[in-house]
């Protein structure tokens, strides 16, 4: 069994930043990433990010990913395991990992969980037909492997992911027939919506999927309109000839490992589902277990990166590393997070976090801060 100081689970924006921040403090870090590549969802983001310079605003996600990966690789004290899925987190803190199909055990002193989120899905007749894909799958297929998912797409969901993936589909030369969303309003940033709409793609709010049609694979989709009580209006059906339906109805934290080890969890709808209670410095209810990014509450990648840096810092302090500027850094990260969550769009996140936050003392009764 391998002894490690800090295990970071997940090599997405939060995990990369956590590893960098802890490595900078001198901690020996093991970073386990499920995929063959580091960067998580950043790899698929061809659009420029919002935020401020500190979070690489106006740089494309894919390029931010490359920057972070390069930085991580510069640290001698970061060991990266790719193609490595963490299977189990046990009560004696032993972690089992499957790497390239092999079974490995590690024994970390501290863990930062940055497993991200998984996609929600929808039920309608034939929702399991080939051609009905999650938005993430479509993104992976086209932006990682350069393969078109099909020729004509119905996008279900007008949140940021639905809008962004629609745009990316068009960039890849695929026709988007329509974007539907059951809500009365577009959920994603309106600038994203506008850049699609002006290419002639209809965005139909208060519309949802009635059924998928096809024998072996998707041949068409029927959508219909909803009334103000979210009930479908008979007679409003429209049949669309599409060979791909892309489901993008939101994300939910991928929190299995937190449940396994017994972190205190709280359902916070605003953050996408069950999230761990944590201190503002991202310590969970369990000693030495930290979280960052979407697993702590679904947000934008910019916040995930800052949270990662903060969690890395907290874990370093927990492990006994003295950093001169720790207070300053902490303040900076917390300020950045405040900025990203300020304003009307951040309202929901702020409300959600208020429910998930507990004082550091309560989060970690054994450790006075």
């Amino acid at each position, binding site marked *: 069994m391998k002894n490690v100081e800090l295990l970071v689970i997940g090599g997405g924006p939060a995990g990369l930043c956590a590893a960098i921040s802890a490595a900078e403090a001198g901690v020996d870090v093991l970073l386990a990433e499920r995929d063959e590549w580091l960067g998580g969802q950043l790899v698929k983001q061809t659009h420029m990010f919002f935020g401020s310079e500190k979070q690489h605003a106006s740089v494309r996600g894919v390029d931010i990913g490359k920057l972070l990966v390069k930085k991580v690789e510069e640290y001698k004290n970061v060991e990266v395991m790719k193609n490595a899925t963490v299977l189990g987190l046990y009560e004696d803190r032993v972690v*089992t990992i499957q790497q390239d199909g092999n079974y490995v055990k590690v024994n970390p002193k501290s863990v930062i969980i940055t497993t991200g989120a998984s996609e929600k*899905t929808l039920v309608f007749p034939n929702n399991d037909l080939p051609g009905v894909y999650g938005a993430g799958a479509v993104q992976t297929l086209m932006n990682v492997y350069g393969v078109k998912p099909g020729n004509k797409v119905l996008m279900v969901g007008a949140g940021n992911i639905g809008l962004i993936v629609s745009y990316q589909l068009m960039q890849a030369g695929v026709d988007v027939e329509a974007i539907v969303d059951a809500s009365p309003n577009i959920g994603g940033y309106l600038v994203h919506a506008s850049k699609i709409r002006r290419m002639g793609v209809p965005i139909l709010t208060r519309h949802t999927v009635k059924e998928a049609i096809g024998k072996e694979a998707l041949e068409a989709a029927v959508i219909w309109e909803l009334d103000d009580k979210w009930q479908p209006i008979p007679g409003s059906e429209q049949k669309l000839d599409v060979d791909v339906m892309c489901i993008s109805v939101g994300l939910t934290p991928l929190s*299995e490992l937190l449940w396994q080890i017994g972190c205190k969890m709280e359902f916070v709808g605003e953050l996408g589902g069950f999230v761990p209670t944590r201190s503002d410095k991202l310590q969970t209810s369990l000693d030495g277990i930290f979280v960052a990014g979407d697993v702590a509450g679904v947000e934008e990648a910019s916040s995930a990166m800052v949270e990662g840096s903060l969690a890395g810092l907290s874990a370093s302090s927990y492990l006994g590393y003295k950093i001169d500027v720790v207070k300053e850094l902490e303040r900076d990260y917390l300020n950045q997070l405040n900025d990203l969550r300020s304003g009307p769009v951040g309202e929901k996140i702020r409300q959600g976090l208020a429910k998930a936050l507990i004082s550091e003392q309560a989060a970690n009764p054994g450790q006075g801060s």
Partner: protein
Amino acid sequence: MLEKTGVPTKEQIDSAFPSEERMKKGPFVVVECFQKIPCNPCFTACNRDGIKAFEDINDLPDVDHDNCNGCTLCVSKCPGLAIFVVDMTYSEDKALLKIPYEFLPLPQEGDRVMGLSHGGEEVEKVEVIKVQNPKGFDKTPVISLAVSKDKVKVIRSIKVPKERDRSEDEIVCRCSDVTLEEVRELIRTGHTTFDEIKKISRIGMGPCQGRTCSQLVIREIASITGQDPSSLLPGTYRQIVKSLEMGKVIEALEKEEQENK
């Protein structure tokens, strides 16, 4: 008219209703039997002398509205499906109308279906309040409908949408092919947590470990039981997250052993 079209006249229908005073007192029976035929199960079914004794089996039923309390026992017994029950006191603006209905699919409680007139014309959408189909009714279910008070003399049937049953195609769990209808049925029969549904249906026990289905199931529980989704637990998460070939564990253990030597 009745003889030519099967639709009774307004006068005939009026004659089947009791006085205004009686109607205000509570449920009553409406027997729309206008032709003398040799038949008396309505009389036999009633145990409170709501239908006066027949002198001749060909007599038309004579309802004693003082004795009848609208108990519905006779409704499913009438071979001509000519008996209905009306309750004008059901609510401020609606009356309760009970009709016999022998077609599939049966409506479900809470459904809104189209009410049909004596002549089969669409009248108004009505809410299905109750569907009674006990053994004793011998396959003549009685459907209770909330109808507008001024339509109690008009509505005599319903149209239940016959849309092809797509429930087989609505998959909640890809791993074990569990459908939405199966999940809903479990919730309706008292299985009200994700874990409970998981154990009995195998949903969430497959290779995806519940990642795809659990939020769908929780949403259904919340919507059917009226609970706040935030009060619902997602079920127990157990090691391990992703399936692992057992031979790989053996390889790792052998390697470990060699290193220890």
